[in-house]
């Protein structure tokens, strides 16, 4: 890390990401905070001949040690001592935002306030005088409308100008003498004074903060400090009762005074937001509207993306053919055509629907609707032991489970998060759709829509039932308390929406691109080679030759396992490779039946290897059994190997049971 270290902090939904992007442009990189799965964004920029290294902290409301996000933010400011802390304050919600500002000043950080969303505040009838706010807070205040790029230049100038300042600490009149008494003793330990702000330590000790106790615990003056602390606390409790509460009260008292003098005009208005909420969070209308919105999202996604997918499909088959005809070496040309190019094509065909789905989701999130969706759905989710916020990753799972599992990070409680992760693969992702289309087309002609829809419903039903079961058995207890801010509705900020869409799509591309691609090449390799050596590229078109390949060996080994469901060795092979990515099932069956994907439904229907019942069981099995490799990777990244393995095992068992039940019921009815 070189240059001057500055950090961005603020409540959630204040436009922090927009400001971070505006400051750093493309010079940023995303990682994780050490030891936790909270995203850490860093970037760089230059201004006035100085280099700045920017660290974006998680969105927080306060700096207690109760949540991971708050602890990360606080530890960073306390330990790394950034040269400047840019505190982004939502002008339309001044009081609540100032609570964090006060806590930053308590730490003794060099704070600069970016007063964002002044346009929204004015719309709500609130007018703030930034100069007056500057005067009462004792730090610089830069008014901005970051979504329109207003105030970015001023912010950069102010960052440069404010380096090396030391703002005055906030005074808490009712507590000053007590804080002083503690500071006097803490101040005797030179090491503590050098590393921490004694005033902050004193306040935190009064609040009963565990971390502060730990810090003081390492001091040679530990006993003296603790003795004084106990005395001071006793006196304070007599006067104010609960000290943490009284301090919070004191902070809010100061904030009210600050807001009073800084807000120069205020009128009550029924905002557009409130009007929308009347309808969107309505008792009876809320859930139907939510379902309608989701339906529109999927309709948009599939309709708009279809031509793009067709173009990609067409391009790769053209590329494969022309490469095939220009290279005479059979093994090499087959590797390129059937392995690499077909593999890339099979992954990239899914890019358009996934990108458009994420675009729609990012827009809904940016607009503020997603928070309402979590609100109206909490009642339903709660019944199954899930959290209202679980609804968002679950719906994202219809696109791709990889980013969906990463989206569970918004759930703060570990149990809620694990549960949401574990049931997520049951949400039928877009990669499973081609499998349903193939079998529905072959065996349920005329009723394809019903057959396919029933798969989605089966997935949702199983996810809820399994969630309920796991909550009863593994994650005992209630879902954590539900508390979530409902930000005012926003006009779309396209830069932020495109940015979020890209970062999610990129995750899919990077994870899926490498793994699925490698997987398809492996399928190719195992198909054109066998115990007897290289079989030649005809193996892919010639069933007799293919039965001598490694693929056939695997299929025959798996067959006994699948015989209760009445599936032959080819189904076993397809499922084996479907583990790489579920859409590979279709491609593999195409290879095994020796036909292109467009003729596959007729050939499978005519071959007699499936009946409608066993085909339906096969569809259900594909829906449920092992998440794809990329999803397993995502689960491992978010929850660890143990849970990734657990997900694989429970889903295999569940898939087997469900398929058997379908075959059993189907057999009994026939």
């Amino acid at each position, binding site marked *: 890390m070189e240059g001057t270290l500055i950090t961005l902090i603020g409540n959630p939904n204040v436009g922090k990401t927009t400001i971070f992007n505006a400051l750093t442009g493309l010079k940023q990189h995303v990682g994780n905070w050490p030891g936790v799965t909270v995203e850490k964004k860093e970037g760089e920029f230059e201004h006035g001949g100085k280099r700045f290294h920017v660290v974006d902290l998680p969105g927080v409301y*306060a700096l207690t040690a*109760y949540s991971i996000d708050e602890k990360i933010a606080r530890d960073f400011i306390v330990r790394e001592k950034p040269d400047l802390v840019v505190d982004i304050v939502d002008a339309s919600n001044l009081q*609540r935002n100032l609570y964090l500002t006060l806590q930053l000043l308590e730490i003794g950080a060099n704070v600069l306030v970016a007063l964002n969303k002044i346009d929204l505040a004015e719309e709500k009838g609130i007018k703030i005088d930034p100069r007056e706010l500057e005067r009462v807070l004792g730090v610089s205040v830069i008014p901005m409308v970051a979504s329109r790029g207003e105030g970015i230049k001023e912010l950069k100038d102010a960052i440069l100008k404010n380096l090396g300042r030391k703002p005055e600490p906030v005074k808490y009149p009712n507590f000053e003498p007590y804080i002083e008494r503690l500071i006097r003793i803490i101040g005797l330990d030179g090491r503590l004074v050098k590393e921490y702000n004694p005033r902050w330590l004193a306040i935190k000790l009064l609040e009963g903060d565990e971390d502060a106790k730990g810090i003081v615990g390492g001091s040679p003056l530990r006993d003296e400090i603790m003795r004084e602390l106990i005395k001071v606390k006793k006196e304070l409790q007599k006067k104010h009762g609960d000290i943490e*509460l009284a301090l919070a009260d004191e902070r809010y008292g100061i904030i009210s005074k600050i807001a009073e003098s800084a807000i120069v005009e205020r009128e009550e208005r029924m905002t557009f937001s409130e009007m929308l909420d009347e309808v969107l*969070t309505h008792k009876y209308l809320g859930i139907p509207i939510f379902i309608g919105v989701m339906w529109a999202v999927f309709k948009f996604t599939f309709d708009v993306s279809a031509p793009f997918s067709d173009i990609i499909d067409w391009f790769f088959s053209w590329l494969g053919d022309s490469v095939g005809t220009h290279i005479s070496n059979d093994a090499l040309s087959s590797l390129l055509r059937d392995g690499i190019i077909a593999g890339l094509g099979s992954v990239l065909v899914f890019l358009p629907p996934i990108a458009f789905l994420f675009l729609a989701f990012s827009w809904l999130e940016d607009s503020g609707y997603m928070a309402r969706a979590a609100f109206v759905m*909490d*009642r339903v989710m709660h019944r199954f032991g899930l959290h*209202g916020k679980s609804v968002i990753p679950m719906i994202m799972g219809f696109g791709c489970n990889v980013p969906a599992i990463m989206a569970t990070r918004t759930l703060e409680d570990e149990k809620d998060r694990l549960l949401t992760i574990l049931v997520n693969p049951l949400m039928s992702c877009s990669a499973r759709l081609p499998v349903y289309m193939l079998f529905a087309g072959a065996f349920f002609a005329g009723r394809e829509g019903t057959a396919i829809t029933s798969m989605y419903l089966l997935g949702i039903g199983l996810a809820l039932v399994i969630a309920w079961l796991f909550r009863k058995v593994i994650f005992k207890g209630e879902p954590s308390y539900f*508390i979530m801010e*409902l930000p005012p509705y926003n006009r779309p900020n396209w830069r932020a929406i495109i940015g979020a869409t890209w970062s999610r799509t990129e995750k899919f591309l990077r994870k899926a691109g490498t793994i699925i691609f490698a997987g398809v090449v492996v399928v190719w390799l195992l198909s054109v080679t066998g115990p007897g050596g290289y079989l030649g590229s005809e193996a892919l078109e010639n069933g007799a030759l293919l039965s001598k390949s490694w693929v056939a060996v695997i299929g025959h080994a798996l067959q006994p396992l699948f015989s209760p469901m009445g599936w032959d060795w080819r189904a076993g092979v397809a499922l084996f490779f479907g583990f790489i990515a579920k859409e590979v099932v279709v491609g593999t069956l195409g290879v095994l039946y020796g036909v292109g994907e467009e003729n596959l439904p007729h050939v499978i229907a005519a071959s007699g290897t499936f009946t409608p019942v066993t085909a339906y069981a096969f569809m259900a099995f594909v829906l449920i059994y092992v998440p794809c490799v990329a999803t397993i990777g995502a689960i491992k990244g978010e929850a660890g190997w143990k849970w990734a393995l657990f997900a694989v095992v429970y889903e295999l068992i569940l898939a087997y049971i469900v398929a058997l039940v379908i075959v059993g019921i189907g057999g009994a009815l026939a």
Partner: protein
Amino acid sequence: MVPLAFLDEGARGKIVRITGGHGILARLTAMGFGPGREVKVVRNQMAGPLLVASGDAQVAIGRGMAMKILVEVE
């Protein structure tokens, strides 16, 4: 003093006490819903979370938690 969950839609009250752990207390306080704050119930459907406003902030609060927030009705 009654639990916040018992207030009707549109009712206003002043938070008096929050029972149920310092984590919840700290969180609510930071979000502007600490003791002493005036709140207005925007949505209360007698099942599922409540929608509560304080100042310019609006939050969804689960019913279980709303039972632990004691208010004085005005």
